[in-house]
């Protein structure tokens, strides 16, 4: 697994003053975060902190207010489909592959906004040979790990510059989790910036450059992943339950 060593300074994704309300309840409050080009950034926090809401709001799946910039361009008013076409996509929590569709159909839909989807598919099938083996199988018949790989590959079919990953290792066997994190680390080499929400915080930070700590819809702290990993307070707060 590649260790994060490069320094990244060019913001690929900037979020300023993001608010999300669900029927009057503020799930996310005045959230600011930045993901630089080629960076992997982890958003950590307890359940109900607003991490998934943040990802869904950035991609436009829930009502939001605030500013979002992609490579400096203001995309705050973009719909979900416009966001995807602009180069940002989300692999949602719980995999959510189209179980009634085949692997091939899932990938085809993933590349619906990519004119060069045939070449992208060849690259992804080489990277994830299991999808080649299961190509004509219905996604619903795949194992949990295979479905997660399909969900990530489907998101990559649009050739995003920024990938939001929500709980990619949730409910998977340890061996599969290794593969998933290997894939996430490789995304850096593909030039894809990643904003990751993950329950296995220690593991997530090991592949990340930086991290944000979130609670009650707000960012409490931010630091490099290395510093966060060695922070005794954070260890007590978050890592204990996962070791």
């Amino acid at each position, binding site marked *: 697994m590649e260790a994060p060593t490069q320094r990244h300074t060019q913001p690929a994704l900037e979020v300023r003053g993001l608010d999300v309300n669900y029927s009057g309840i503020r799930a996310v409050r005045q959230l600011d975060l930045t993901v630089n080009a080629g960076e992997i950034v982890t958003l950590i926090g307890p359940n109900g902190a607003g991490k998934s809401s943040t990802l869904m709001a950035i*991609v436009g*799946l829930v009502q939001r207010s605030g500013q979002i910039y992609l490579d400096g361009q203001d995309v705050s008013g973009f*719909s*979900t*489909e416009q966001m*995807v*076409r602009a180069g940002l*996509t*989300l692999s*949602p929590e719980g995999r*959510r592959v*189209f*179980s*009634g*569709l085949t692997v091939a*159909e899932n990938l*085809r*839909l*993933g590349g*619906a*906004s*990519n004119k060069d989807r045939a070449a992208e598919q060849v690259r992804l099938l080489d990277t994830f040979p299991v999808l080649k083996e299961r190509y004509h199988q219905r996604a619903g018949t795949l194992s949990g790990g295979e479905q997660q790989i399909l969900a990530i590959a*489907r*998101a990559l079919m*649009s050739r995003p510059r920024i990938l939001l990953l929500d709980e990619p290792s949730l409910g998977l066997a340890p061996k599969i989790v290794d593969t998933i994190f290997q894939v996430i680390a490789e995304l850096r080499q593909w030039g894809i910036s990643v904003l990751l929400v993950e329950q296995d915080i220690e593991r997530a930070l090991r592949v990340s450059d930086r991290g944000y700590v979130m609670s009650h819809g707000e960012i409490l702290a931010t630091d490099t992943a290395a510093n966060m990993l060695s922070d005794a307070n954070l260890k007590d707060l978050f890592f204990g339950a996962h070791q």
Partner: protein
Amino acid sequence: MEVFAQQALNAIALGGVYALLGLGLAMVFSVLGMINFAHGEIMTLSGYALVFVATTLGWPFGLAVISACLLAGAAAAMTERIAFRPVRGASLTTMLLTTFAVSSILHVVFQNFISPRPIAVPVPEWLTQSLNVGGLQIGTLQAISIAVSLVALIGLVGFLRFSTLGLAMRSAAQDFSVTRLMGISADRVIIGAFAISGLLAGLSGFLWVAQRGSVDPLMGFVPVLKAFTAVVLGGLGSLNGAVLGGFLLGILEVSLRASLPQELLPFRDAISLSIVIGLLVMRPQGLIGRAEAVR
């Protein structure tokens, strides 16, 4: 044996019309989670268009049928743009009320601007004749019903399997939010579903009015009820279920018509609905529906 074959043909012909009707409702339900009760009025509109194009414009009947179907598709897409898009995301009750409002407005338009009375459809003579195939009496209209239903269903399967928009409609039936994450416009998927639903209403409208020989403002009520029954029987949210439900309903009605004693025939619809309810008690999600329909 001959009687059985004859009844089987009748069941396929009727089931095909119900399948087209059910599929029209299911297309919209699969993307919006809403039963469009104005579907019957779109069907009625296609009937009026058929009469207008064939009688007033004097176009050949085949061309009139195609025009009526296209108009129904366009009209359904227009109802989405004008009536349903503004309430998209509202509660299910609001959306259902909107479908009733569209249905009522179209009724009033038909009654006041066309005629409150039935208008005869100029069905060509060849359509009312029958063919004798190996001792079986097959009505031309019945043969056309079977052929049109099969061609439409095969065409639709091809569209849903091989086109990106069709795939998006299938995926939207499963998970609409994630379909949007594929970079596919929600508006395009929804308006596409309405347009196809309208085309199917036009096709089934042609088969329906050709059979009864007239069109009137309230004509759409019974077909939309049959379509709704077919969709619920097959499983809400399942396109395959709508087709299966349509054919099963057709088979059920034809079987009851053939087997019930004369004095029970007026209760045929009540009996067939009771059987459907019985099936739903055993399988509330429908025959091949998901336990929980997803928008």
